[in-house]
């Protein structure tokens, strides 16, 4: 069986707790898709829920709010990993429940 547990944990720890240009608080908020102010909250909400709707204007607004390109890079990465993580953990919990009752 493929085992991504360690590699996935290392990825999450790296983007949330390692060195970066965005603050740890900003990265965590993007990962959680919670606690961000406009206009960044709109960008991050789109990345998490329907990334195909992200526009050039969303990025322009994030820049205008004072974020550098590196900071935007980091928080978008965190938002994508955060939503994929919630999906993954929810599905594993459902699998665990299904296996237990079998």
């Amino acid at each position, binding site marked *: 069986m493929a085992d991504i547990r360690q590699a996935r944990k290392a990825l999450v720890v790296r983007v949330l707790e390692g060195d970066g240009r965005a603050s740890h608080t900003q990265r965590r908020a993007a990962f959680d898709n919670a606690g961000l102010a406009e206009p960044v909250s709109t960008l991050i909400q789109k990345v998490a829920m329907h990334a195909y709707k992200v526009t050039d204007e969303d990025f322009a607004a994030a820049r205008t709010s004072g974020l550098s*390109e590196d900071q935007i890079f980091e928080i978008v990465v965190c938002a994508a990993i955060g939503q994929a993580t919630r999906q993954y953990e*929810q599905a594993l919990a459902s699998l665990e429940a299904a*296996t237990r009752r079998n």
Partner: protein
Amino acid sequence: MRLAILDSGHGLGTKALFALIHAVSRQPVLDVIKLVKYRADFYGRPMQGVTQEAMRGPSAWSVGDRELMAALVAKTNACEWCTKAHTATAEGAYRNEAKVSAVLFDLETAPIDEPLRAMLRAVRKLTREHGVSTDDMRAVLEAGVSREQIEDALAVCFAFNTVARLADAFGFYAPGRKAFQAGAKYLLARGYR
């Protein structure tokens, strides 16, 4: 791409590598490569560890099955770039274009085994609805898919639910079919390292 740093913010060594890739493949360097090579210690390298294990690690699913799952995750996310990339890779792995097209067109009528179909239904639902129920998972188990196989498929979902979001958010440029086929050939020969 929407961030200039992802297009041209790489170090000189990486830029030289891109020039080499372009010279050898005679195709543009794919935006996904530019993404994973930009400040690779932040995202690219740790993510490649996850993706390599999910897509090429030991599994009862074949490489083609996992590439097909990736293509379905991409399509369900409405991510054109990743759909094209992993459709090409699944076609190459299976050596069967019709099978991949059939699954992406209509999962219910595609000529595939029932365990894979059941797994793909759950992959699609997890991606579309951001979750699956206990009953959904039980249906996959009852179709003959092992718990380990389901975990393997969920690992593929994790990787491509991340990558598809980044492709769309950063605005990956979709090149022609030949570039995706060259990328697919590389992924089948070398994996995601």
